[in-house]
């Protein structure tokens, strides 16, 4: 056992982690916050979501599903970004790859934690998923594939630590395939619901993959920058080059997303497709318009895009700010996507009396705490990872 751990946990080499007190305080804070958040989750699990969550019969999926989607999108994205270097051998991306693999494991686990509290009877899952396996259910595929994905990614990470790069690449490829399959199934969870006009259509799985790439890019920029800053490491030339390449890839995916979003809006408005147009109105100039214009468009797309272009992807500090904005914007995207699909009333357009034009949903403290604990969980393990794995440096060979 010790031997195995020794081969995974480097004692020397890499970068010397800072021993500054601040880091330990931050670690403590993130750890405790995570535990408190999980406490909130356990509380609502015990007393029932009806009393602690803002979800309802009409809007059964709330902020926690949005957070779950956010985390797993990020994880898939990190896997995609890492595979550019590891699996496809594009050397520019190598220096960020190890950290990306590590963080993809952390974020998927954060996603699992969050969803564990959104699902009311998590404990019925292990048996139910096997005994009752429903092969036509996208949720089932997503869960199963993400389970496999987690195993592959952990395998890849361990092999990377052991410097078995060839074997790691196979695991990386398996992880990438299962991750993308899982992720497009997550898109299909929404996209294949004929009864939900805002979600329905082949757009969802495609959009999910495209936005995953963006998530992955900005998250790795964010994490790499923070890791270097708090440990006072000087970024190596290769590392900077990698950051620049990732930033360029981020700009490209933003361009794709802008294109997607424009057509999504046009398709939702042109010819007033029933139901869809209601959601579009809510998004463009209704109750979700601030989320959309400020969150999704400004923070999620325009600001990072402009920053990356303005500094020609060269200034690390600027890239950090861009990535931070994008992460905020991406969260707004996930939230709007999940909630907006549900707020269109089932019997819209039927001249109903005493029937809302839009259902409403507001997250509660419990939901926000659990979602936030997912974030602190990621930060905790980001910091811890830098300590344990000494800056995730890949030995050049």
């Amino acid at each position: 056992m010790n031997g195995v751990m020794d081969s995974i946990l480097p004692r020397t080499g890499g970068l010397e982690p800072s021993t500054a007190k601040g880091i330990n305080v931050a670690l403590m804070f993130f750890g405790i916050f995570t535990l408190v958040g999980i406490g909130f989750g356990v509380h609502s699990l015990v007393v029932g979501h009806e009393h602690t969550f803002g979800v309802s019969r009409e809007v059964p999926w709330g902020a926690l599903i949005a957070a779950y989607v956010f985390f797993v999108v990020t994880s898939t994205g990190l896997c995609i970004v890492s595979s550019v270097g590891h699996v496809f051998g594009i050397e520019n991306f190598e220096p960020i790859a190890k950290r990306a693999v590590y963080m993809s494991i952390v974020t998927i686990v954060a996603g699992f934690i969050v969803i564990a509290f959104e699902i009311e009877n998590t404990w019925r899952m292990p048996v139910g998923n096997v005994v009752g396996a429903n092969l036509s259910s996208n949720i089932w595929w997503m869960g199963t594939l993400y389970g496999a994905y987690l195993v592959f990614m952990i395998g890849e990470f361990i092999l990377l630590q052991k410097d078995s790069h060839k074997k790691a690449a196979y695991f990386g490829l398996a992880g990438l395939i299962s991750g993308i399959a899982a992720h497009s199934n997550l898109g299909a969870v929404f996209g294949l619901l004929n009864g939900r006009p805002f979600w329905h259509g082949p757009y969802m799985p495609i959009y999910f993959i495209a936005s995953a790439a963006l998530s992955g890019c900005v998250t790795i920029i964010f994490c790499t920058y923070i890791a270097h800053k708090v440990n006072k490491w000087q970024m190596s030339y290769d590392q900077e080059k990698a950051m620049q390449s990732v930033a360029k890839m981020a700009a490209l995916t933003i361009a794709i997303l802008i294109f997607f979003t424009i057509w999504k809006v046009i398709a939702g408005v042109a010819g007033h497709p029933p139901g869809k147009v209601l959601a579009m109105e809510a998004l463009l100039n209704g109750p979700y318009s601030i989320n959309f214009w400020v969150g999704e468009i400004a923070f999620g797309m325009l600001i990072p895009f402009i920053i990356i272009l303005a500094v020609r992807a060269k200034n690390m500090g600027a890239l950090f700010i861009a990535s931070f904005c994008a992460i905020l914007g991406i969260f707004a995207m996930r939230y709007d996507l999940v909630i907006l699909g549900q707020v269109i009333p089932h019997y819209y357009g039927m001249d109903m009396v005493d029937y809302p034009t839009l259902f409403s949903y507001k997250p509660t403290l419990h939901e926000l705490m659990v979602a936030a604990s997912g974030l602190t969980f990621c930060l905790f393990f980001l910091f811890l990872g830098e300590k344990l794995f000494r800056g995730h440096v890949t030995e050049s060979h």
Partner: protein
Amino acid sequence: MKLKELEQLKNEGVDHISSIERRRFLKLGFLVTGVYLGGKALSLAPLTEAQAAEVVPPKGKYSYSPHYSMVIRERLCINCELCVEACNGTNDVPSYGYRTDILERRRAIVDDKYETIFMPVLCNHCNRPPCVRVCPTTATWKDETTGIVKMNPGRCIGCKTCMTACPYNARYFKEEGRFVDKCNFCYDTLLSKGAKETACVTACPADVRVFGDLADTNSRVYELLHTPETLVWVLRPKTGALPNVYYTNA
């Protein structure tokens, strides 16, 4: 004449591949790609059924026996909610939930007036139920004999995907027992004990709700759906769920 012969020939050609085999082949293909949608959802037979202009299945083409269905004679509904009360009492429905509900619509009529239409809603026991397709653990399924969409509470993980998938808002999460509850045509409480109709049907004083076996051409539901010069409709037909709750003003 020739054309007809040709058509028949073609049909025979297709029929040579048994539908089970075709289904198996499709299943395999989709299993591999990971986007398998279930034999029912993809096989071609129900597709033609969905493309039929009528919302009522063509005569003789009933997938279940008894093919339970309900006919709502909408204009007679007076929103007295005796059906809701009966349902709640019979099926142990908590105060925060409902299996059936009465919604209200308004329609402009002559002389600048409006008329009120009360619209009873319940689970449509769809022939292609979206809730059943999405359930990861088959905690909900379509009963093979009766066509009733049933729930197995102990299997429900509470992911609520069925609730988002249902186009009709027919499902709710029942805190007591922690599972998604829904109308099952009173199967466990009444039908399985020999009763011939559901609690809401028995309770309705205005004869709005009629329940029965659509496959039985002597049944009242069959009669109501096949009365000359009447219009029959279902809710949200475009979702393709193929409801078994029909609405008419006959």
